[in-house]
């Protein structure tokens, strides 16, 4: 499958921005890109997004209408679920900056850190 990462993102954003089904022409009007992509390019990328499962497609008359399968928020929530999952088998997939800690630990460490900072600035 050819790669249109940038354009895919722009098109998805345009589809998310409008409520309800859109056709290629609607998306083309919404896209604010220089140079303006060709109608057929947008058509191709929208078909790719459909095949990837990002959009549903319904034919009305001779025109295809597309709709996002899930909202942008749903996808973000999915990403964050993966990012915050504590499951062990995720360790090799994503590397997190930090896991959580107990509330008690946090308070005690905050105190320790503040003492260290005062000492540092006193020096």
């Amino acid at each position, binding site marked *: 499958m050819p790669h249109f990462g940038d354009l*895919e993102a722009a098109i998805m954003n345009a589809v998310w921005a409008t409520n309800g089904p859109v056709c290629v022409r609607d998306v083309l009007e919404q896209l604010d890109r220089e140079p303006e992509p060709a109608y057929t390019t947008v058509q191709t990328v929208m078909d790719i997004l459909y095949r*990837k499962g990002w959009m549903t497609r319904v034919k009305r008359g001779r025109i295809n209408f597309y709709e996002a399968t899930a909202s942008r928020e749903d*996808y973000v929530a999915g990403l964050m679920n993966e990012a915050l999952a504590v499951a062990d088998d995720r360790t*090799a997939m994503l590397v*997190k900056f930090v896991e*959580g800690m107990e509330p008690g630990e946090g308070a005690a460490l905050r105190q320790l850190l503040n003492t260290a*900072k005062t000492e540092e600035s006193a020096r």
Partner: protein
Amino acid sequence: MSAALILFAYAGLLAFAAPGLLSRGGWTARAPRLGIIAWQMAAFSLLVSAALIGFALVVPTVQVSADLANLFRACVMALRDQYATPGGAAAAAVGAVLALAVLARAAWCVTVSLAGALHGRARHRDVLTLVGVPAAHLGAVVVDSDEPAVHCLPGRRRRIVVTTGALRLLDDRQLAAALAHERAHLDQRHDLVLAWSGGLARAFPRVRLFTRAHAETVRLVELLADDVAARSADRLTLAEALLTLAGSRTPAAALGAGGSTAAERVRRLITPYPPLGHLRTALTSTGVAALLALPLLGLATPMAAAAHLHYCPPGTVAAAPTAR
């Protein structure tokens, strides 16, 4: 047979004693890189010796010869000798099954672990390209979420992900410290060592050395990345970034006796642990090298001794050294 027994004793000792020895005194927190290497080598050594036990049972020790044709003939003779007795044949069958089973299981689980990570990352990255906003000045992708989090996607098409929630909580210097920590993970490909040790731990969950090696590696790569980040960022700033992001969540996983890894990291950044001295570093490195060398030695010693045995009829191989 004796080689197999020596290896068996070594493997047993290693599996039994190594986890305790390596955790003793908490020295790994003072030298995380050496700690990772030590745990990995101990696990690898156990895997290799388990496989070698099998091979030692299958292949009787033969005269080592520089001449390939002679070596081959020696092997055939010795093999014929061993397989002529029912006990020898049974031992060889057990050995073959053991060696193949150990290696195949390890290879399979590590492959699954790697493939799973690759697949999951590709999907995560796909979603990220559509919902994330690249921020070139940060070298990261920003995701619009109130959940404060920073994480990275390792691999060839690597990404660092920061949420808007994290951007709100961290100031510029704290953010830079957090990003430096993630870059250290990516640059040193910690994901590969994690995939390997995770695969081994899943392959043999009953073997404590493997599960402990994985758990310790998970912990030590964090300490190592902190140390790398602390070269470019202030230690206390990094500690504050950690506290800010970790403080908002509680870990779901059960905690060890020393509390969460996050707490240990913060403590370690506030009061730097003295690095391991030269002597202890040298001693530990020697120990690590020995872990790798011992199983091979265990196989090589009886092999060398066997060089003086006459496995084969006179005139074939036994005559070879004099002919040379």
